[in-house]
């Protein structure tokens, strides 16, 4: 049955993907190289663990002695996050529409996509530093930084969601003689609204976390308190603040879950 063997050999069900294999090999080599360059080894890790043990020991028990300071900080963080999310979402809606290539001509989408890319280029902390330098210390700088981050994130994903909609539904709405805005309201928005809500609640979540951080660079909120506590080696206060932050994020998780269910 040599002919059968021959055809079996020739007919391979799965052809090997040599470029992919080469890529993974190169990646593995780079991983080993990079780890050796950074001193990422067992010796360094065991030293680090010892250090960590001492650090953890000083954290317990958490100290809520300065709870007034912690509460006012966390309240400010919450305000920063909610205000930034609101304006970020409101701005991201038109920006996302204008950046969708299946709805808008290229001379609108191109600058819009460039603007979105610019918003996304920098970490919120870097944007916060810029705003602190530009408009001074305080919550306003933090709010502005997080608005930029929100617009960047939501409008990019929103534009992509719009580009994936079913154009058949849009065509049918257009065929009724509907104008541009009526097509948006009845043909486009119903298809993307649940995803927009999803992105927005995710961004609110993300803003809550980031709002605890912008304070480190002077953008207001609990971050400043946290940073001071670190610098004064008040690790028990640090732990207290961290616990409060975790609590806030968990509550936010539950609330955004409700929001998503309300809007399906």
């Amino acid at each position, binding site marked *: 049955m040599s002919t059968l063997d021959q055809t079996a050999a020739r007919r391979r069900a799965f052809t090997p993907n040599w470029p992919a294999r080469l890529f993974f090999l190169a990646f593995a080599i780079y991983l080993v190289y990079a780890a050796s360059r950074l001193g990422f080894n067992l010796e360094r890790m065991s030293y680090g663990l010892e250090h960590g043990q001492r650090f953890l020991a000083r954290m317990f028990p958490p100290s809520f002695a300065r709870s007034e300071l912690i509460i006012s900080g966390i309240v400010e963080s919450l305000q920063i996050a909610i205000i930034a999310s609101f304006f970020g979402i409101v701005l991201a809606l038109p920006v996302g529409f204008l950046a969708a290539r299946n709805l808008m001509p290229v001379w609108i989408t191109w600058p819009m996509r460039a603007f979105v890319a610019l918003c996304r280029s920098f970490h919120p902390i870097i944007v916060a530093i810029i705003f602190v330098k530009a408009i001074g210390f305080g919550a306003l700088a933090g709010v502005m930084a997080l608005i930029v981050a929100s617009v960047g994130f939501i409008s990019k994903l929103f534009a992509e969601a719009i580009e994936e909609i*079913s154009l*058949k*539904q849009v*065509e*049918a*709405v*257009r*065929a*009724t*003689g*509907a*104008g*541009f*805005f*009526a*097509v*948006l*309201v*009845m*043909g486009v928005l*119903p*298809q993307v*609204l*649940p995803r927009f809500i999803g992105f927005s609640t995710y961004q609110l979540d993300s803003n809550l976390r980031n709002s605890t951080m912008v304070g480190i660079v002077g953008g207001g909120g609990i971050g400043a308190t946290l940073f001071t506590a670190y610098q004064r080696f008040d690790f028990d206060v640090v732990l207290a603040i961290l616990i409060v932050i975790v609590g806030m994020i968990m509550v936010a998780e539950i609330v955004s879950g409700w929001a998503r269910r309300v809007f399906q």
Partner: protein
Amino acid sequence: MLTPATANDVTDKGDAAGDALVLRHLSKEYRAGVPVLKDINLEIPGSGLTAIIGPSGTGKSTLIRCINRLVQPTSGEILYGGQDLAKLGGAAMREARRRIGMVFQEYNLVERLTVMENLLCGRLGYVSAWRVWLRRFPQRDIDHAFSLLEAVGLAGFENRRADALSGGQRQRVGIARAVMQEPKIILADEPTSSLDPKTSVEIMELLRNLGAERNIPVVVNIHNVELARRFATRIVGMTGGRVVYDGSPGDLTDKDLNTIYGGENWLE
């Protein structure tokens, strides 16, 4: 944004008997030098059901979409109600579109909207975007929608979401949406191709009856020759982007079908 014309203005434009739709030298090339429609000359009278039959890819959908300008014709005229639809743009084109109802092969309902909202989509050419956003449609439109739901056999379905309906139910909503426009003509692009045989017959009956009751001419693209014979008052056969048959269903012979579809054996 929309010119606030009342329904009466629209009714005045075409007379009760219904205008004829005249296509003159209509051609369409999606890519230069590759015509899909070649010099179509056709007159569709102001009443009755015209079926357009022909093999897939022969330009039936393109022809129908040229009429309401979802597709831009390359050359030729579309004369209707004293206008050349091929030359309209902007607000004038939208105003022409709202007098032309369209029914789609895959229903093309807005899936996440309710049946009522989909029906009211038929009024988008008449109602301002702001009122649409707030869902403040005129009571007259809402009453009309309820009576149409009953007419298409979907009474009580108004709050169901379109994606919860079966194919036949969706197409009924699609037809009701087209009739909501109070159109002067209805175009249907393969309205039965996604449906089972029994539902297909029901949908064709619905199209014919609604058209006859309201004196709206209906143009249907259809694959199924039997359905075309049964429901049409006139059959147009197309092949290769040209009209090769135009006559009554009774006169359509096997020889004509061979000219339209090519080959012979499939008729056995």
